[in-house]
């Protein structure tokens, strides 16, 4: 059973997935940030691979990616850093990134290497359903990686069921059609999440985009299996002097 499935078997409510950018704030801080997230109560780590043109992300995450790229982060370097990851990180780790750098690395080589270092799954927002089914999905599955599709409030039911059927690990429910780091109207989000609950999907549902603190986490956790926090944590990290202190304070404030 995959680490993600095991996690959701043990814990079906208030699962917290925290996003961090590989190579941010410092090139070699990746594992330190991940360790800090684990020890302070994150249940899943979504590790972002920086890209020059991250379409689905807002300003905060793009800026952190630019810092990471300027620090010299590449997929090669990331895999070197992650080679010893499983000595200390025991919670599920999902890589998030865009297709172009992965294609240059080689899609199959990337999946192999990701599995080898102990990555559990992939989130690739610009890999669409058609291309997943016809070109890339097989390679992902063959290498034993989970793949997480995004769904939005506008995703029609039939398509939603299909995305759920092809996802493993969990389903990423975007709180509203927006890039990361924007404020949301959470009364509308609740209606949407209740609709998802009523659909009795195959996968657990984690809610992302606009989740930034205890209030927003509680608001979506009530109608889902948990949530994903990205921009708010990156924001905190970018002003931080101590990764451990910042992470501890941030997660305490969310989970209290």
């Amino acid at each position: 059973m995959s680490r993600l499935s095991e996690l959701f078997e043990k814990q079906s409510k208030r699962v917290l997935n925290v996003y961090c950018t590989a190579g941010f704030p410092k090139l070699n801080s990746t594992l330190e940030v991940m360790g800090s997230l684990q020890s302070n109560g994150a249940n899943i780590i979504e590790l972002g691979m920086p890209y020059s043109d991250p379409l689905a992300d807002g300003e905060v995450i793009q800026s952190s990616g630019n810092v990471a790229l300027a620090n010299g982060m590449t997929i090669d370097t990331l895999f070197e850093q992650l080679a010893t990851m499983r000595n200390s990180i025991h919670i599920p780790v999902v890589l998030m990134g865009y297709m172009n750098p992965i294609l240059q690395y080689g899609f199959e080589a990337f999946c192999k290497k990701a599995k080898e270092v102990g990555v559990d799954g992939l989130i690739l927002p610009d890999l669409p359903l058609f291309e997943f089914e016809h070109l890339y999905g097989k390679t992902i599955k063959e290498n034993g990686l989970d793949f997480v599709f995004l769904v939005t409030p506008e995703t029609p039911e039939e398509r939603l069921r299909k995305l759920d059927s092809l996802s493993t690990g969990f389903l990423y429910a975007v709180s509203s059609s927006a890039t990361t780091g924007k404020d949301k109207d959470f009364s509308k989000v609740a209606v949407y999440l209740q609709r998802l609950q009523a659909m009795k999907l195959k996968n657990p549902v984690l809610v992302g985009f606009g989740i930034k603190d205890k209030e927003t986490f509680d608001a979506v956790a009530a109608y889902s299996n948990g949530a994903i926090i990205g921009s708010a944590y990156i924001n905190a990290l970018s002003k931080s002097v101590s990764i451990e202190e910042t992470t501890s304070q941030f997660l305490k404030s969310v989970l209290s």
Partner: protein
Amino acid sequence: MHSFNKSINYQDPSAEGYYGDFGGAYIPEMLYGNVETLKTQYLQIMQDPAFKAEVDALLKDYVGRPTPLFLAERLSKEIGATIYLKREDLCHTGAHKINNTIGQIILAQRLGKTKIIAETGAGQHGVATATVCALKGMECVVYMGEKDIERQAPNVARMKMLGATVVPATSGSKTLKDATNEAIRAWINEPNETHYIIGSVVGPHPYPDMVARFQSVISEEIRKQLKEKTGSELPTHVVACVGGGSNAAGAFYHFLNEESVELVAVEAAGYGVYSGMSAATTQLGKPGILHGSKSILMQTPDGQVVEPHSISAGLDYPGIGPLHAFLYESKRGTFMSATDEEALESAFHISKIEGIIPALETAHAFSVLPKMNLKPTDVVVVCLSGRGDKDLATYMQAMDLQK
């Protein structure tokens, strides 16, 4: 020189928007609804006689089409072949860009959209979009790189005068690529009421095909006009500059499946193809994904997109439309390039011998004519995609340097 495969229909991408391996719709799920609606409706709308009539009427009375096909006698003599110029510079707003924005704004109305967003580099597409938004009373927001806003002040003023809001793109390299990112993000953030008018044959399917079809009026007219002038609808060569590739797609479109016509695409080599300051995408790029489609892309070995350089902002783009990537890969198209310096020289030369000041983008197309080994019997159509008024500052600088 060029290669032709009879079994390929070069005009039409597959149902999922692929020309060979290039194209597709690599978009986040948040854009699925909008792009899917476009994908299922664009052909139907474009083939509706009432839609066609509305577009044609505006192209005629507002844009000033058909644009002339002009026999450039002095240039012909100099090159030693018959050279015709397709005068897109005479379109309202000064370039071919408006052919597409007229079509897309009426399409947006049919889709019930109330707001238009667009990206722009030099500002030509931004002006063409702001113009049709004023014409149709639609809200218009144009995303433009912060650096380009500084470099292209007159076009920024034009857009504002036309009632558009110009939003600076402050991310990344602060140029066209980033303006496109910002426009796509804005579309993600308010997808329901907004239509995104992409200015070139790039972006997720169906944009490359849709924009090519709206621009195809260029080659449709060339065929008719050439028939009247020479007795044949077919030239031996069509030459156009390529950044994203919209004027080239329009000028090539009705010749794509004509074996005898050589299609010459001219990229911007900047300081020189291998100088590190170039925008010659097919020479320097590798297959990759940017702005929602798979194409040829200038990038680092790690797959980060590279900022290109060209003296002309309209060619300063690290990618190329998927149709052009396919024409390059299949060798249906002949890809050449011209440097900043060659383009400047051509701009001055064409001004002096034909009395037409071309846009810097277009000037690249003229630069390759002497290198094409043309024969006296060749009939060449050059797509004169835009006029040079917007480039006057650059031209004045060049004249100062020559003093």
